[in-house]
């Protein structure tokens, strides 16, 4: 146990000095790993934002069901409500009294605007149900079903928006797939090559260590720790870069008032943990694996 601690301290010291003394290679590896992590970061940013934006839009996409006056005064509201509730894929349903809504709207108006409504009856607006659906892909189906219900005057949904979101989502799914694939291939290729270069430069060193009688694992550990350190340093750099670039984009977009309100980007402070964890985790794993793989060949002396 004591021996293990002693060795571990030596491995860490070796790893640090290896990193410093092979400075150029360390820098090269850090650049490569950082680029790979940032690639992953771009993918994360796009996915997270598209999901959040489409959720925002979906939330804004209620189905509005207007009730005929006959139904209203014929006391049919309860039964219509029950019939709607019996449908699948509903998330929430609220009733909106037409007169009340009209009053609410009028409250928010100035005198000039109010003058326009002078003399109109209070029950100008029909009563309605506001329905949210579990997933916007079901909006159309449910709208169709509700239209069939007796006493329903009309159903409103923002069909164009719904179709648009659905296609964007599909697009992102494809995009994610290809990005992940490209990301993995590129990083595996570049990193294994960079580390191979590093280890190749130190092949003589490894040989000497073997001549002196160092075990494979004694030689391997400092390299693996060095790889992990390179990964973590890259993660920190990638994190700082992501933060500043993303925040700049965020500020530019949120100042642009022409973009409608639900295309609101996530703030970095709400998603930083996703980046911190995936950068650090992936950086360390890539570094360690890279070292472990490429050193294997040279240990066979």
């Amino acid at each position: 146990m004591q021996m293990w601690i002693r060795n571990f301290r030596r491995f860490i010291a070796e790893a640090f000095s290896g990193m410093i003394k092979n400075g150029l290679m360390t820098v090269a590896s850090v650049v490569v790993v950082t680029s790979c992590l940032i690639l992953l970061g771009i993918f994360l940013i796009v996915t997270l934002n598209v999901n959040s934006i489409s959720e925002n839009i979906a939330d804004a996409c209620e189905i509005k069901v207007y009730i005929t006056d006959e139904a209203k005064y014929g006391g049919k509201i309860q039964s219509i409500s029950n019939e709607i509730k019996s449908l699948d894929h509903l998330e929430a349903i609220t009733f909106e009294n037409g007169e009340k809504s009209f009053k609410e709207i009028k409250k928010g108006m100035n005198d000039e605007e109010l003058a326009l409504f002078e003399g109109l009856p209070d029950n100008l607006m029909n009563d309605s149900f506001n329905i949210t659906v579990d997933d916007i892909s079901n909006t159309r189906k449910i709208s169709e079903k509700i239209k069939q219900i007796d006493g329903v005057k009309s159903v409103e949904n923002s069909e164009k928006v719904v179709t648009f979101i659905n296609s964007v989502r599909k697009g992102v799914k494809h995009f994610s797939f290809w990005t992940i694939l490209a990301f993995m291939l590129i990083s595996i290729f570049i990193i294994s090559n960079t580390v191979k270069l590093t280890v190749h430069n130190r092949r003589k060193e490894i040989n000497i260590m073997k001549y002196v009688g160092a075990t494979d694992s004694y030689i391997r550990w400092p390299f693996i720790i060095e790889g992990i350190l390179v990964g973590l340093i890259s993660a920190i750099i990638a994190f700082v870069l992501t933060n500043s670039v993303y925040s700049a984009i965020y500020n530019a977009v949120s100042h642009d008032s022409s973009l409608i309100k639900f295309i609101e980007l996530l703030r970095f402070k709400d998603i930083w943990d996703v980046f911190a964890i995936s950068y650090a985790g992936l950086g360390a794993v890539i570094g360690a694996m890279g070292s472990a793989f490429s050193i294997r060949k040279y240990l066979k002396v």
Partner: protein
Amino acid sequence: MIQFENVSKTYDNGFPALNDISFTIEKGEFVFLVGSSAAGKSTIIKLIMKEEDATEGSIMINGIDVCDLRRREIPYFRRTIGVVFQDYRLLPNKTVQENVAYAMEIVGASGKEIRKNVPNVLSMVGLAHKAKMYPKQLSGGEQQRVAIARAIVNNPVVLIADEPTGNLDPETAMEIMDILEDINRRGTTIVMATHAENIVNKMQKRVIVVEKGSITRDEEKGGYANVD
């Protein structure tokens, strides 16, 4: 101590480097391995340190059957023998004292032992004052002394050296030989492959002559050339 029995070595490419050689070296001996180029001297050294496997025959080092060693046992076996090469083979990124300390670190020595033994061996090879220098700041002779210090710091029973003076001028070579003789006097067995005729003649130690993969002469207090 070191016992070769009917050892043959044929390299993977089919070249028969050693052909049925046998010899025994006792503890505390100083032995020169001489012979013309390509005779098989380095091959013998490689067999002793298990860098290559014998094709036939048996090799006992220190009571260990080298042919039976498993791969993962090799590092532990190598720690019992010190090795010195013509090209020094120091770790370029470590200072003189770190190079010597590394040999102790791998066997799990404590910091205290390392701080005690490293200066000791360095002053034994006359390099205490250059402990903090890097190999590339040293002359060839000095680098070879570091290599020797590293080879003996764990008190091996055998020190094998493959042309340790090959890259050095005669004067420096003699200084290295003085150090090796000193080490030998302290009880370490030494096997040294060399071309240096004057050294062999001067030292008057046991000489094993290898020619074309066979031992042609083996005599106590011998010279380099045949003096029959």
